[in-house]
Structure formats: C-alpha cells, structure tokens
C-alpha cells in the first residue's frame, strides 16, 4: 500500500495518524490553568499539550489525581465562607 504512494501522501496519511493524541481536554480559567501548570512543573505528570489561555490537554489516567491536588491547592488559598446564603438565621 504505502510503497505506491508518493512521498507527500505518506507524510499526510501516516502523519495525521501518529499525530492524533489521546487525552482529556480541560477547559478552565487562566488562574486555574496557572495552578495546573505550577503543579505540572514538578515532574510533568499531567500536561500533554498547552493549547491556549483556557485549554490544556491532560493525560487521562492522571486526571483524578490532578483534580484532587487542585482542590487541595484551592482549599489553601480560597477561604470557605460558611452559610453565606443564610441571611436570616433561625433564632436559636
């Protein structure tokens, strides 16, 4: 099959197949993205490709771990407001 093809075609067909990357597309705010990049900088365990300001391609098998670590990081930095909806409290 491939011998018959001209050089250009081989590159096109083979190229597009080998350059298909399986992964998880993650959409997030730039602020969250910077945290993910920070987490990844330790040993590049998560990111396959940095796509644009709000998108990243992440390794599928490490997604859960990344989510957990991101949650931990956010807990450190974002204060948790208790009962912020309860404007009129019950009288105790």
């Amino acid at each position, binding site marked *: 099959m491939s011998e*018959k093809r001209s050089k250009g075609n081989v*590159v096109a067909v083979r190229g*597009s197949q080998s350059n298909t990357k*399986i992964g998880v*597309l993650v959409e997030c705010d730039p602020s969250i993205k910077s945290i993910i990049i920070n987490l990844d900088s330790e040993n590049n365990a998560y990111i396959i490709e940095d796509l644009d300001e709000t998108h990243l391609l992440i390794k599928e098998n490490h997604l859960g771990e990344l989510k957990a670590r991101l949650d931990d990081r956010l807990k450190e930095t974002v204060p948790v*407001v208790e*009962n912020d909806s*309860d404007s009129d409290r019950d009288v105790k």
Partner: protein
Amino acid sequence: MSIASSKTNSLAQYLEQLQGTTLRRLYQQPSAAFAIFRRMLPHLAKTIVMACLYMPTPFLLSDLEIWVRPTAKREKDQAISILKSLHIVAISIPAKDAPQTLSLTPNFRTSLRLALEGGGRHNSFGVPSTQPVPAEIDAAFLDRYAHKKWDDILHFVVNSVGLGGSSTISSSSASGPKQSVKDLLVGGRLVERRNVGSGINITQAGFTFLLQETNAQVWTLLLLWLEAADHAANGGDKTGSAAAVDSVDMLSFFFLLASLELGRAYSTDALTERRQNMLPNLVDFGLIYIPPSNPHQFFPTRLATTLTSSETALRSVSAGFSAATTGLPSSSSPSSSSGEAADGSGSGGVSGGPGGAGVLGDAQDRNSIILETNFRMYAYVQSPLQIAVLALFSELKFRFRGLVSGHLTRASIRRAIDMGITSDQIVSYLATHAHEQMRRQAAAARKPLLPPVVVDQIRLWQLDSERMAATPGWLFRNYDSQQEYLDMANFADDIGVVVWRNDRRRMFFAHRIDQIKDYMKVRGKAREQQQQQK
C-alpha cells in the same frame, strides 16, 4: 469489571457502539427497525429515511444537497452521520466515474416497509393471547402494579443515600425489589457497598439515574441487564451458549414489547425459549405482568409500552413517573393509545378516575415546592421518595405531616454536586415541582418562576467546585498544510464532534474519532487513485 467500565447509560450510546453486523441482525425484526426509526432519529434524519424508503434507485448525494438549505448543512451532516453510525444508510465510496449515492441498508428498508405496511408473518409486533382475560386486569390495575414495582426500585436506590429519615422510608416499602434487581443495581454501580456491613451507598451514576425521566431509567436498567447478561455469557462456559442470552435477540425483544398495546393479553407460547426465560426479569422490573392463574399470558405495563415513545426531555422523578403511569397524552406511544386500551388509560390520566387512583400521591407531590428568595424551601410532600430526593440537595429542618421545610445552602448544594447531581438538574427539579402559588405569582408579576438570585447562586456554587471542565477525546495536530488541516477540521466540525479548535496552530480536539478515521481512509484512497492516474 466490564459492566462498570463501559458507560453505556443511554440507549443511543449503546446502539452506537454496536457492530454493523449486530445492527443489521437487529433490523431483521420490523418492530426493532420501526422503534429505532421512531425513537432514535432526529427529524431531518427521519425525513431522509422516508424519502429513500420507496425509492427504486440509490439517492444521489448531490440531489440531497439541493433538498437541504445551505444554512442547514450542519444539521444535514449530523443527520447523515447518525444514520451512518446506526447503519441505516450506506454511502458509496467516492470514485471518479460514479457520483456518490446514499441508500438504505437492505434489512432496514425491508423491515421498515413491513412495519409500515403491516405485511409478513414475522410476529414481531407480538401475538395476542386467545385465552380469556381475567376481569380484574385492566389498565388501572397494570398501572398500579407497574408503579409499585418501579417505586420499590427507586426506593431502594434512594434509601441507599443514608440521609436523615431513611428509617421511615424503609418501613414504608418493606417488600423492596427482588434480590436479582438489587444485584443488578450494585453491578451497574448505581449503588455500591463501600464497606462490609455498612449497607449500600448511592453513587454518582445512581443520582443521575434518580433524576432521569422514567423512560430513561427503564432503559438504563434494561441495558445494565443486557451488559450483565453478556458479561456472564462471555465469562461463563462456552458449552452452554445455547442457553446463554443473545443480546441482539433481547434488544429486539425490548423493541417488540414497546410495540405492544396496554391492557391486552399476549401469548407467552409464541415467544422463543430464550425470550420466555427473560420474562421473570421483566416481571421484576414491572414491565410486564403475568397473572398467577395463567402463565401462558402476559400483559405489558405502561413502562414497557412507552419504551420507545419519543419523549426524551429530562424530567424529574415524580413528573416522569406520573407521566409514564397516568398516561399523559404526550408520553403514551402511538401503539398504546390506539384501540380499546386508550379509553381506560386516557380517562384515568385526565380526570383522575380509576386509572389515576394508584398514582394520586405523585400527582399531589408534583406541584409542591415553594422557594423563597432567602433560600428557604417549603415542600408540601407526603411521599418518602420525594422527601429523600429533596434531602439530596437541601438541608431539611422541619418535617410536619404533609410539609417539610429546609434551606438551600452552599454546603447542601456542594454535597449534591460532589455526588454527581448538576446544578441544572436541581434547578429543573425545583422548576417542575414549583407550587401552584409560585406559578400564579410569577405569571402575575411577569417574573421568572424561581427567584433568579437563588438559581444564579446554585449555578455559582457549582462553578465553585468545578474549576475545570474535562472532555476525553483526541487532539489532532501537526498538519503540513492549512488546506489539509481545514479539510479535516471542517469535516469534524460538520459532524459535530469538535470540542475545541485553533486554526492558527492547526489543531483541533474531537470527542469522537470513528468517523474521522473513516473519512481519513476514504480521503487517503481517493488521493491514491488520483496519484495513480497521474
């Protein structure tokens, strides 16, 4: 665990992952072809199928282009893509001398024609029983029966939440579903045993299941059952394959059930042995009723006859269920609303007559929730099932006879979201169950039904805990030429699988790959031919 890993929750997903040969076998039965046509296809796809159905020659793709407005190209491509993935149409491979044509696959065409014309001796729409029907079995009886069976299953799932008030719930539904059904729910990961001896807990999938409309719930269970049966057949001894379950046969049996008429008796003797063996499971789900006095008859309930009705909107537990059991006109399938069965069920649903008696509780619970701008919620509900569902996403404070009140708080919403409920599901649940008073006020003041501040806050709370949205799929990149990139990306965009694209960097991300692969092959071949000719 193959059962848990393959997330085939909906019928559409299940059908799409089937092999072409499997689907072709399925289409041998007219009721299956008809059901798929009716339930699975978008409107434009139906139109295309109907156009081709009696066409003697294949349909030129270029002619189809003319039929469809240029602005609707996307819809057309998506319709064709669905038809192709379900193996309903075949499209010829492009060649230099012959233009591309579209034609229905032979099995589907023959079966759909048979289904519409009513010819043939295929028995695919059931064989009515000739034996006398017991007097007490009517549509109302079957509705009550189905309601009881299905509620037992839902109760079992809700009970596993382990929130407050569960003890009262379990006492009210002492019987519960059969052990086999419980095992199925555990096997399908709707509920799971986290620790030995601690009873069972609901999973994310279980929550999604609870908030689905009944029709989707029934399919979820049936597909779980199919997968479990497949699993058992593949893992078990090969010698007993004759007795093993054939999933294609069973699937077409489900479609057959869906084409039956409510309130009519059908003969079990006309069924194959495999299908007869399946009947006890369907009894456990409440899809059919077999009178103890005569095991040669079975009666489909409304759960079965509405299986392929076109009602696909997401509805809440009780609304969906009352629709399925009281026979609202919108949800009853054409086959069940024709003939004598319609008389009994129609009056039951509208006037709350004998047919509605069994589901009175649900009808009351439907318009029951008052939601205030201060996040307080008052719900006039009686059914433990409803209270348990409310407890999933609110903090219930007081419970009186016929009334519970509570708060929506950040913690309660987050808990629900952590368990897999989405903010949209919560909002739509509150909206469908809003109290009559809320509706009147909203209409009078021309304001939204639910206080916008609460709705927005629920959504914000979800965003709070979901900092990123993840979509599994494939990234396509490293294209040599812009034209080649645009060709692929636009194709993928047209069939609706592109999640993200960046034309400058020549990359796009698709959540499905099968058809893109096919397209690449076809294009590769076409190029090859061109090269040879040169």
